[in-house]
């Protein structure tokens, strides 16, 4: 009741639309509501004002003298209505700094000019606390449209600001942590690079010396050596070459891991043809029947994809050595809308018992005396395929050939016989 009274008291007659409509039977208060009389209208407005406890609603005149002060205003600014209504100026709701800078006056001028001002202000409570408020300031006008004062609706957003600043702080901390982790990763990567570099340089050098001087020993002092001694020297040189190849292949494996993909649409047929041409040249005495089907165009790094075919097809050539003719087939089918490429041979195959060793580094399923190799080739192939988001798997049977399948960029449904890891042939 006190609210209704206060409002009725403080709004001068002739200033408010519902007061003027008092004479009508069913006065219209504003669009969409009908009240039956002044008393009801005042009650209506009073209810709105008093139930808006989260919003401070303040009315003043053009000089700033406070005329209206709701419950929300009391909660926000800390003054009881009787302390301020008719007595205080609304500029006291601003911080002294803003008052000195003339901000309350500027806001009122802007509201008059633009019809409304919205923004945040630095508010001041009765106890001296400062806070941030979001404010809508609108001019009040009389029946003739002449401005008579302002309506100031404000809400404390200090908590929101605090939350926002905490989120900002958390984000900054997060960014800092990410930066730190990135720096650590970069350092680790650098270390790894330095390591591979010194593997390349430092491990190869002594091998070169062993091979060089044993070769000179053979050439310049061969006649002084017994047949047995000469065989030892040959064995030394074979081992050196094997180790040299191992180092080179290992370096290549780490290089594949570090290399960034240079993805472009690539026709697999032309890649395969290049590789097959090289293999034909390198194996002129072999009887190999090449069956190259139509292969898809896929998005991949062509240089790396060529390495995949070099490794798979050289393997096929190697492991069909006892066959005449060797039959090597490269084809593609579709599985779940993704192309699956396969390389099939009629070579010595492998037992499915050891299929999980196939793609592991240094894993070999054959004696070095039968089939040379370093045990890094299929590990490199798998790394390249995985880098492309694809998967590779193999099927084989001892003495019945082998088939390697791979997909590129399909993370979804796995193939019939997926292998998570594996070894070498």
């Amino acid at each position, binding site marked *: 009741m006190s609210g209704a009274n206060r409002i009725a008291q403080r709004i001068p007659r002739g200033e408010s639309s519902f007061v003027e409509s008092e004479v009508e039977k069913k006065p219209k208060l504003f669009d969409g509501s009908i009240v039956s009389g002044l008393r009801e209208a005042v009650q209506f407005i009073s209810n709105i004002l008093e139930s808006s406890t989260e919003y401070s609603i303040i009315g003043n005149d053009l000089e700033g003298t406070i005329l209206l002060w709701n419950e929300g205003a009391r909660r926000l600014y800390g003054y009881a209505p009787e302390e301020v209504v008719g007595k205080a100026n609304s500029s006291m709701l601003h911080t002294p700094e803003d008052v000195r800078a003339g901000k309350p006056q500027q806001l009122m001028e802007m509201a008059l000019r633009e019809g409304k001002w919205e923004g945040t202000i630095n508010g001041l409570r009765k106890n001296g606390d400062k806070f941030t408020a979001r404010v809508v300031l609108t001019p009040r006008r009389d029946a003739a449209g002449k401005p008579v004062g302002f309506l100031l609706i404000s809400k404390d957003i200090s908590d929101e600001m605090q939350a926002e600043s905490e989120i900002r702080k958390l984000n900054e901390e997060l960014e800092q942590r990410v930066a730190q982790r990135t720096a650590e990763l970069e350092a680790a990567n650098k270390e790894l690079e330095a390591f591979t570099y010194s593997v390349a340089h430092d491990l*190869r050098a002594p091998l*070169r010396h062993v091979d060089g*001087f044993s*070769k000179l020993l053979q050439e310049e002092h061969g006649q002084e050596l017994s047949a047995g001694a000469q065989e030892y020297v040959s064995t030394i040189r074979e081992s050196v070459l094997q180790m040299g190849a191992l180092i080179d292949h290992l370096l290549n494996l780490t290089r594949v891991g570090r290399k960034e993909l240079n993805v472009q649409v690539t026709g697999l047929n032309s890649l395969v043809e290049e590789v097959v041409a090289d293999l034909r040249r390198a194996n002129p005495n072999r009887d190999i029947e090449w069956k190259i089907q139509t292969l898809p165009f896929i998005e991949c790094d062509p240089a790396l994809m060529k390495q995949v075919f070099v490794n798979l097809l050289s393997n096929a050539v190697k492991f069909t050595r006892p066959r005449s003719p060797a039959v090597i087939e490269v084809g593609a089918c579709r599985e779940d809308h993704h192309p699956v490429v396969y390389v099939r041979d009629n070579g010595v195959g492998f037992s499915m018992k050891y299929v999980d060793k196939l793609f592991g580094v240094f894993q070999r399923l054959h004696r070095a005396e039968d089939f040379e190799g370093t045990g890094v080739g299929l590990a490199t192939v798998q790394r390249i395929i995985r880098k492309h988001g694809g998967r590779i798997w193999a099927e084989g049977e001892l003495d019945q050939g082998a088939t390697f399948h791979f997909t590129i960029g399909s993370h979804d449904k796995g193939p019939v016989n997926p292998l998570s890891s594996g070894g070498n042939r």
Partner: protein
Amino acid sequence: MTTGDVEILLVEDSAKDAKLTLHALRQEKLANSIEVVEDGEEALDFLSCRGRFSGRTFKQQPRLVLLDLKLPKVDGLEVLRIAKSDPRTKAIPIVVLTASKEEKDLVESYRLGVNAYIQKPVEFESFRHAIKQLGLFWLVVNQPPPNSAFQP
């Protein structure tokens, strides 16, 4: 021979590598006069005719520099950078002969103006073959830069 007509400057810190390289060059009778220096600083002293090479003149530049990349004191890339940015040494053919096939070394060497880049093969036969080809090309096939090319 520090003041005469040095044909090849071999910059190599490994005595064993130097021995194998010299063996290959001599076997092919490609160079009579080869100077071996063991670090980048000595290489720069040689090319810039200073230090223990102050008796040399810029008119007697070698026909070929074989440069290892991983060197004590001043590394090979730095030697390359300095030699290729000095007008008095810029025209000297420099061939990098290194164990590294790292892309960054290749890129940096070519950016700095290297004349050729060879990775030392582990297998001596291939190594000897590479040295032979290299010597043949730069000392026999190639027309060396005339003296006026070394004037600033």
